[in-house]
């Protein structure tokens, strides 16, 4: 799992400057910041607003609309677990209950002692090999509670 540097306002400014020329630059900028620092610090809002000639409210509104953008540093590990219909048909909701009961991991809550979080996601496009999870950019099919717990602990 990636280790992120601490938020750096100057570095953020230069990332923003490098992308501000794009048409509709807001999302590319937010993705670049999150890729660099693991999250988009609220301090970035006025920088983006100024670079793109938008109001701070516009920028804040955009950040808060999308599920992906974090406004605080992420835990060490993020496991995204698909809970859409195709994975429901293969028992992902039972998996969620098992995770809580057997491993103390609450989906969209806490990682049960691991510096990790399991987040709900709707569809990873692996609907014939579910239930599916995405961890560290890797797609994993046919997961069960033990596998997800192992991912939280940093074991594949």
């Amino acid at each position, binding site marked *: 799992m990636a280790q992120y540097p601490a938020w750096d306002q100057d570095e953020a400014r230069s990332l923003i400057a490098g992308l501000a020329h794009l048409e509709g630059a807001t999302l590319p900028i937010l993705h670049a910041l999150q890729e660099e620092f693991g999250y988009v610090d609220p301090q970035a809002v006025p920088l983006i607003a100024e670079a793109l000639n938008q109001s701070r409210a516009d920028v804040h509104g955009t950040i808060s609309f999308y599920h992906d953008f974090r406004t605080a540093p992420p835990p060490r590990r993020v496991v995204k677990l698909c809970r859409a*219909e195709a994975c*429901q048909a293969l028992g992902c909701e039972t998996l969620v209950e098992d995770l809580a009961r057997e491993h103390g991991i609450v989906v969209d809550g806490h990682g049960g002692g691991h510096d990790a979080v399991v987040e709900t996601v*709707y569809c990873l496009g692996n609907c014939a*090999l579910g239930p599916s999870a995405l961890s560290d950019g890797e*797609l994993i099919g046919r997961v069960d509670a033990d596998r997800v717990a192992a991912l939280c602990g940093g074991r594949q």
Partner: protein
Amino acid sequence: MSETVRIYVPIDAAALSVGAEAVARAVAQEAQARGRNVEIVRNGSRGMLWLEPLVEVETSKGRIAYGPVAAKDVAGLFEAGFERGEAHKLRLGQVEELDWLRRQQRLTFERVGVTDPLSLADYRRLGGLKGLEKALALSGQGIVDAIKASGLRGRGGAGFPTGIKWQTVHDAKAEQKYIVCNGDEGDSGTFADRMLFEGDPFLLIEGMTIAAIAVGATKGYLYIRSEYPHAIRTMQQAVLKARNAGILGASVMGSTRHFDMEVRVGAGAYICGEETSLLESLEGRRAIVRAKPPIPALQGLFGKPTVVNNVLSFAAVPWILDHGGKAYADYGMGRSRGTLPVQLGGNVKRGGLIELAFGISLRAIIEEMGGGTLSGRPIRAVQVGGPLGAYLTEKQLDTPMDYEALAGIGAMLGHGGIVVFDDSVDMAKQARFAFAFCAKESCGKCTPCRIGATRGVEIVDKIIAGHERPKNLAVLRDLNRLMTDASLCAMGGLTPMPVMSALSHFSEDFDRPPPEALPQAAE
């Protein structure tokens, strides 16, 4: 020195999700240890996902498939002589002769799984760029006419005739026009776009470029959801390669036409699959749905005339230009012409990608090709067309895959996803989920969707809890009618479809003894 053997190990995300990377490493290591010369090609997936990782070996008798292969099987495969196509318990035979593939009519997916997706040489060798070459010799109107003749309808779900959309953009007068590809494939049970991004990225680039030449656009955007990291990487590399090869840029394939494109990444919002909210997102704002009119064909991205099409619509275009509109229209039934890449998933034994002419029955797909449920229990419900599609019963499975036939039974084809459920499914819970999903993913612009979805969850909870059932069922029907009639887009407008189909076909699930612990929203 032995001859070099070419071995294919897929790089498709679904194959990787069940261990293809470890298999590729094991093949390389084992070959080295045994002093065999092998060339490992990382191809796309053939779409027989239950057989992944599906390893193919090129022999004098064609490509012989083995699967599903685990890394631990690799030593045994070499022992058996699989690099010569010899017998082994995982040997499936010559891949193109496998019944599952032979029954298909692959036009759009003809190269997916066959080639190294990022090899332009492979792409050209297997017929790539012929459609674009022919398009460059035609007028814009000539291209639009070919698309009209093909009968192609938007594969994103709405089924709007692609040729008419292109005609509108073609006829619009503007200094700047755009091509936007909707790759926000958020429907559960769909993965055809993903497989195409990862398995034949140049096809999509070619299709978008033909659209640009047809309507006079110079800039394109491909919007891919962030949940598809592998697809994003592949498409970004493919765009670079296409630009370096002169397919994109100031002079498309050496012509006087200019077109370039960028890959843009979504940020986890289902609503971006709706074309106007996708445009808002591309413009850098909250993805709030726009009211129509104006239609995007006239005032789309940054207010300019814009072709917005689904991945599979653009991907059908090169074949149509190469073979002619009529050849495409010769496939299909009724007003649904051509082929449809069907995606079979959920609780099914043999899930995957099945491209066929319109008209095959759901039962043939699910039972004959899919082999029934993975759990081995009876099929109880099938959801067709994603989270906004209807739940059908086992008795309705003789319906053909056709826009109008499905609409006729209160269902929809959507993006061609089929999700199978066995008899352990609780349809009241599925109805509740449809509302909960809508509440979570609603953009919030219109009241029926924003408020209605939340009210829907509460009402279904009350029904499950056994609280004044007849009254709450009446309220539920009323709410569904209101959301259908008054929502701004398909998110709120179609959420009632899974709910009402669950209620009409599986009413017994709404009439069970209440559980002991009440769900949260019920008092």
